[in-house]
């Protein structure tokens, strides 16, 4: 008799549908849990307990069924994966490109799906631009390496400007067609990306105040489970809500923790990329008397995101992105540029700025 007894170890036989007399005899013989039967067959059972061979056969059949059932359940409940499985899975993770090649390669191919990425920076460093660019890029068709998904864009401070989105989308369409032409065999564009398609794929929600954000995040699970195409959730700007009108620090911590938990869950459950923006704040070091900039809304929040990119502009107007936190990459700083087309690589001799028609 072979069955994986370790699964239902310790399970009392009194819980099984056995007839009372048989059960009494088994208990008298000291066989009170399922694993006790592991190496027994009906003749041994007959000799040891005085149960007839036929009855013993029936008892063992019931036991066997029970074990099989629990084994089945056990298999269903636990999806235990080995590190190798995870490694293979990790290589399959899709990314949303940023159109800044240097940044993409820094992030192993772009903003990963299933993770939370945060962009922080002082005002005017390009946080909203990244959000708009990513919302557009989430729509890039699979045939040229995109994720072909849709976006939920949660705007908290009115920085979702449709004209700017149209500018970025227009350039992205042109860019994708160009890529598709060079990739295609017949010199023809295979991708059917249009401006309308991009705009239709971006779903906007406006939000005033932190309570509304909490409500939207709760409802987000419903939206995502209905629309499987959504691959990106953007919250621009997360910090401003929690820095206005919320003076109770304990409440803020609680809300942020709840929010963090929900967002991480959403990212993992629905395999979407979650992109948040955060402000910067000044941290004063009392002893030295000087100060430096750190991402806002506290240390609790700092633990949440998987990837954190800090954006900055120096006094000459040159922009740079610093990979501040990522579990498997080292801290790097690289330049990027924002022009009429959106986020692009920084090129030193970049002089020509294309005007949208």
């Amino acid at each position, binding site marked *: 008799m072979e069955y994986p007894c370790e699964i239902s170890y310790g399970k009392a036989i009194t819980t099984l549908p056995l007839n009372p007399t048989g059960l009494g005899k088994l208990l008298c013989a000291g066989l009170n849990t399922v694993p006790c039967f592991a190496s027994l067959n009906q003749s041994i059972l007959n000799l040891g307990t005085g149960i007839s061979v036929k009855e013993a056969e029936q008892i063992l059949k019931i036991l066997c069924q029970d074990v099989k059932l629990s084994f089945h359940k056990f298999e269903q409940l636990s999806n235990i994966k080995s590190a190798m499985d995870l490694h293979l899975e990790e290589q399959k993770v899709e990314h949303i490109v940023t159109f800044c090649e240097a940044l993409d390669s820094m992030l192993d191919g772009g903003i990963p799906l299933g993770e939370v990425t945060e962009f922080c920076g*002082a*005002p*005017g460093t390009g946080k*909203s*631009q990244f959000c708009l660019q990513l919302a557009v890029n989430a729509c890039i068709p699979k045939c040229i390496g995109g994720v072909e998904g849709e976006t939920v*864009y949660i705007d908290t*401070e*009115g*920085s*979702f*400007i*449709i*004209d*700017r*989105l*149209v500018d970025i989308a227009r350039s992205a369409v042109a860019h994708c067609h160009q890529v598709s032409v060079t990739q295609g065999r017949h010199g023809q564009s295979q991708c059917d990306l249009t401006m*309308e398609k*991009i*705009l*239709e*794929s*971006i*779903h*906007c*929600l*406006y939000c*005033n105040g*932190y*309570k*509304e954000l*909490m*409500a*939207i995040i*709760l*409802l987000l699970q*419903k*939206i995502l489970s*209905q629309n499987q195409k959504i691959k990106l959730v953007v919250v621009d700007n997360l*910090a*401003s809500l929690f*820095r*206005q*009108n919320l*003076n109770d620090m304990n*409440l803020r911590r*609680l*809300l942020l923790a*709840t929010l963090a938990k929900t967002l991480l869950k959403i990212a993992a459950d629905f395999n979407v990329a979650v992109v948040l923006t955060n*402000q*910067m704040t*000044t941290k004063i070091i009392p002893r030295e008397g000087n100060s430096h*900039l750190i991402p806002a809304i506290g240390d609790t929040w700092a633990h949440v995101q998987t990837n954190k990119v800090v954006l900055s502009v*120096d*006094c*000459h*107007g040159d922009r740079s992105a610093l990979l501040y936190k990522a579990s498997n990459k080292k801290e790097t700083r690289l330049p990027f540029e*924002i*022009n*009429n087309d959106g986020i692009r690589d920084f090129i030193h001799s970049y002089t020509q*700025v294309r005007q949208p028609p």
Partner: protein
Amino acid sequence: MDEDKVSRNNADGNSNSAESEAYGSKEVLFDAESKIKAVLQKARISDETQILVLSDPDLANLSGLTHQDVQELKLHVAKKLVPQVPLNALQILKDESLQHWRLSVSCPMIDRILKGGILSGVITEISGESACGKTQLCLQLCLSVQLDQKHGGGAVYICTEDVFPSRRLQQLIKFFAKNKKSHRYGDNIFIEHVGDFESLDVCVERRLPTLLARGLVKLVVIDSVAALFRCHYTAAQVMERARHLSQFASVLHQLAKQHRIPVVCVNQVSASMGRAAGPSVTPALGLTWANQITCRIMMKRLSSSLCCEDPQSTHQKPGESSSSLNLPTYRVLSVVFAPHLAPANLKVCIDNTGIHGLEDI
């Protein structure tokens, strides 16, 4: 477990209420309203939305509900609070009432670098040293908002620094009167002098909402924000100042959003020391304030040496000949940041007809 799922699905199919259509949610399986009432009573809170900020265990304790029911309860409140259905960008593009409108500055050059003008629904900051033309720009906005047929209306001008320059306004009105003759420009500008925080708070939090609710006012100018906030707090009260500033800004933000109007805040500058290169002055009030605004425009007076070189190259616009007596001082208007604008610099001059753009720098 499977049976449970099936019954839920059935409930899904039967639900027809508009609310559940919006999010396609499953029908609330229990009487949410009465539960909400019970929770509110127990927790001694009056605001329903407060349920959203209570933690799950707290809520379970208060209501005696299971974990799953607590989630259901929160969802119910969430749906009531956010009845909106997500709109896609194409719908927004097609429907102008969902977009931000732009308040023209009444100068084609400046409008060009601002892509149409000052954005509605957000806070725009105009900063610069003293006498660089901030107030001039604001006055012009107050008049130009009255010219806008579609979105325009009156303006509210809140002064905190010095007296309202009404003589200059009258001068500008004379010029603007050419555009729209019978219009009484002065009657549509509401001026408020504010000398301290108490009156500022009263003005912004009580009087302004009432005035805006009547729908006549389409522009709010605060000249300047820095004056009060800079002198009222000492260096040791940085935290307090930050809190007050962000609260003040959030009120303005709400008003701008709710009434879909542009809010313009004038800011002073402070010298930035210790930096070898870069601008010698930065807008005052620091990062706290900068985080609150959406667009930042900076103005600067060009140094006098440049003024002496340039008068020959002045190209005058037709109909401006009367201004040739007083040689204009050149100023630079620059877009520092805005979500929809590229950084740009424009040379401008101010004459008795207003502020005009000359050329890109």
